[in-house]
């Protein structure tokens, strides 16, 4: 039986647990309100005396490495998702932990993927106590059905850095998958048979974890150049046959959506940036690898060429479409958080203008600024938006976990945040009275673009003025919502959820923004 959990109402009106996995929580108090004054965490001081003078930190296998790191019951072990659904290292590390008899681990991945569904068995066997990291597919279902022993904690990429740095999560052992590494532990992601691009998601763990293990299938003689992960932070290096399935690490080609409705949305987004005067020389934007976002880049590219406009930088997830912008002189730089296709990987490995970034440089809210707020426009998706422009990206309307937060929350800091969404999916309206799970506060969401029209947040009078008189189909959000409800035959019923919290959504500052409830 789950113990009785006390709830508090936060500034967004959401009921959130005041304790999560035995740790007291601060409910969300508003955008930019929570500013802790403590000091950052730090790993223990080490001496070179304890590491081989010749730099060779190799051990025979992961079990030895984990044993040497002192992995014990109840500790926190972390992994990273730069190999995406092709990753083999996370399960390798968890299974090795099981073999050495360790129980009740907190698994702290930067994101989990469907191919890691056997983590469920490890939870059933007691090896993993709970997961703090994005969960979807079978793992998401396991969590929302209330089967996980602890509570899930969903953090943005920036929020994960913040949590490590601020000491909310203490990583005992970080296991980092490295497409290329040397025996000292220097590691890089842009070369090797399992090349994936940036290793930025693992950077915080490499700096703050008590112990760091690098696992590679492409050991090169010292020095591994470049070294995004510095060997000076690494305890052990393990060589394995394969760290992942290259076919699932990066896609050979990234597909632009063919759906006419989605293309229409993408074109509206690009036209909006042009009409609002955001698309101008020296501007910057970020778009992900979803079908709409990719199509948006193509439309924007054509408009940039027509108007003779060049960007100073664009932010990835990089794909061949961003690489084309770079190669055609339409942007000076790509600042890349993760790399989605082969063209992206080749470019980041060979073009100095295509730069790896990390959640620290891009997203960490508890730093001396970050890049996200310097980006002029960002194009994001959402599963739901509500009439107050609040966004949900983690659950579907039925309350089941669907996506991780990724960089989504962090990106809301951009100059113009655009959610590009179809107005309904399978009869289910996307614009609702109140989002199922609040992931992004409406005050940070500026524009919602659907195939039926564009709604500008009334808080952004500047954008309303800038696009006045344009041919864009700008309409009140309520209008689009009413039209969709007419088409769909009325408002959808609200699914009934239980009052048992199974996960929390953290805001970028570590406060609790909302709760994911067990589904009934």
């Amino acid at each position: 039986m789950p113990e009785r959990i006390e709830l508090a109402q936060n500034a967004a009106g959401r009921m959130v647990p005041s304790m999560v996995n035995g740790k007291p929580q601060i409910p969300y108090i508003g955008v930019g309100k929570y500013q802790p004054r403590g000091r950052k965490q730090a790993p223990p001081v080490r001496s070179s005396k304890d590491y081989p003078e010749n730099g060779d930190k190799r051990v025979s296998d992961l079990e030895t490495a984990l044993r040497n790191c002192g992995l014990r019951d109840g500790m926190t072990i972390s992994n990273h998702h730069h190999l995406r659904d092709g990753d083999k290292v996370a399960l390798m590390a968890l299974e090795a932990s099981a073999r050495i008899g360790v129980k009740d681990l907190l698994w702290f991945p930067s994101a989990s993927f469907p191919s890691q569904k056997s983590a469920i068995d490890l939870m059933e066997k007691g090896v993993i106590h709970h997961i703090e990291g994005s969960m979807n597919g079978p793992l998401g279902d396991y969590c929302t059905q209330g089967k996980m022993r602890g509570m899930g904690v969903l953090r943005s990429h920036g929020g994960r850095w913040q949590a490590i740095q601020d000491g909310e999560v203490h990583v005992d052992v970080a296991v980092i998958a490295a497409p290329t590494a040397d025996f000292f532990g220097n590691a890089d992601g842009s070369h090797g048979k399992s090349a994936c691009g940036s290793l930025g998601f693992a950077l915080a763990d490499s700096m703050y974890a008590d112990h760091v293990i690098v696992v590679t299938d492409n050991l090169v003689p010292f020095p591994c150049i470049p070294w995004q992960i510095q060997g000076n932070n690494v305890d052990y290096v393990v060589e394995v046959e394969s760290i992942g399935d290259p076919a699932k690490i990066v896609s050979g080609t990234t597909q632009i959506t063919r759906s006419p409705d989605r293309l229409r949305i993408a074109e509206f987004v690009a036209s909006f940036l042009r009409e609002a005067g955001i698309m101008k020389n020296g501007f910057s934007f970020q778009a992900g690898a979803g079908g709409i976002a990719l199509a948006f880049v193509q439309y924007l590219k054509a408009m940039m060429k027509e108007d003779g406009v060049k960007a100073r930088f664009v932010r990835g997830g990089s794909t061949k479409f961003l690489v084309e912008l770079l190669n055609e002189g339409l942007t000076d730089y790509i600042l890349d958080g993760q790399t989605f296709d082969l063209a992206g990987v080749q470019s980041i490995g060979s073009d100095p203008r295509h730069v790896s970034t990390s959640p620290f440089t891009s997203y960490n809210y508890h730093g001396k600024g970050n890049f996200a707020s310097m980006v002029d426009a960002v194009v994001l998706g959402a599963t739901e938006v509500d009439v107050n422009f609040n966004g949900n990206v983690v659950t579907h309307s039925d309350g089941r976990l669907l996506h991780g937060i990724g960089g989504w929350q962090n990106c809301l800091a951009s100059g113009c945040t655009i959610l590009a969404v179809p107005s309904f999916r399978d009869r289910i309206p996307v614009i609702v009275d109140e989002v199922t799970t609040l992931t992004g506060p409406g005050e940070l969401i500026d524009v919602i673009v659907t195939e039926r029209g564009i709604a500008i947040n009334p808080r952004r009078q500047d954008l309303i003025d800038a696009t006045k008189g344009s041919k864009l189909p700008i309409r009140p959000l309520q209008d689009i919502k009413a039209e969709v409800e007419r088409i769909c035959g009325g408002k959808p019923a609200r699914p009934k959820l239980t009052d048992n919290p199974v996960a929390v959504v953290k805001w970028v500052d570590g406060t609790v923004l909302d709760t994911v409830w067990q589904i009934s």
Partner: protein
Amino acid sequence: MSTSAEPVRAAEAGHWGKDIRSDLHVALEPRDRGGLEIALESRVDLYYGDSIRAQARQVLDALGVKHARVNIHDEGALPFVISARLETAAKRAGLVSDQKALPDAVPLPRPSAKDRLRRSRLYLPGTEPKYSINAGLHGPDAIILDLEDSVHHAEKDAARILVRNTLRAVDFGACERMVRINQLPLGLQDLVEIIPESPDLILIPKVEYAEQLAEVDRMISELKVRYQINRPIWLMPILESALGIENAAAIAASSSNVAALTIGLEDYTADLGVAKTPEGRESLYARSKLVHAAKAVDVQAIDSVFGDVGDMDGLRRWGENSRAMGFEGMGCIHPSQIRVIHEAFAPTQTEIDKALKVVAAFDEAQQKGLGVVSLGSKMIDPPVVNRAQKLVARARQMGKA
């Protein structure tokens, strides 16, 4: 309770499965007693399950179906689709003859003018609801709900009911609402179902004689009287054979309701026994003849479709060539073709500028009471003025002048 001469039987309608969207499958088993037993599986059950069950009951009540077991697999269908599939299943089961279960109607758009812009007409298969729902958003001049070639012969009854409901319940914005009926005589049955919903234009396939058109025209007139429809329903015969092309002039002149002639090149080239090419040399004569026949009675000549959705350059070339031959539009099979077609059929800025000058010169001459119009040192003949006026009018319709 059966109103049909045929015995009642179990029947199905619609589609379901992992890849099906916006449709549903209904399996209906008539019973002698026990009322309506409705079982539903739906991917939107949590949100609309109760609504779907209530709608099913309401539709079956309206159709007079009192006792049946009904299994519904729903893939997120909208209400007008749900009604159509239930009605189709009930009719196939022999439980219903003439009753209809009509969905809520959206307001009718303004009646369409005979000479309105018809640059693009987007084909929508009559049995695939997912394509029609947002079709109007993509801005073709017309949409065509197709009952003919895109519909398997076993699905003709289902398509007719779905197209009827689509005409009634879907807002196509400023698009002209066209329906392509089946070849006669089946097409006459289509008319009975769809004319009450006031389509703006009927495409009649494989027309070869003026008499065929007269038959359709007569039937529509009768139905318009019966259903008190007081707005035009235009005709666009599709000529798809050598014989049809030879009779083009008579067909064009057969009714004042003919707004345009068009050609179906797949069937036409098959009839000739030649290959259809992207350049269209093999159909040059037929298309020229069709343009002449249309212009002779002052109706529009509309070209066939361009089948390669991936080849935008080919489409543009085809469209520009088409316009140069005298066509005013063509069909499209994917929304991505619409913009290219509109660009191809638009007069160029140079043409517009020149025409505007001619029209201005004509207006000036009229004001001054001059019989002769001149532009600079050149005298402008009346046909040039006429052409310029037409071009300017069209350009204005396209928002270009």
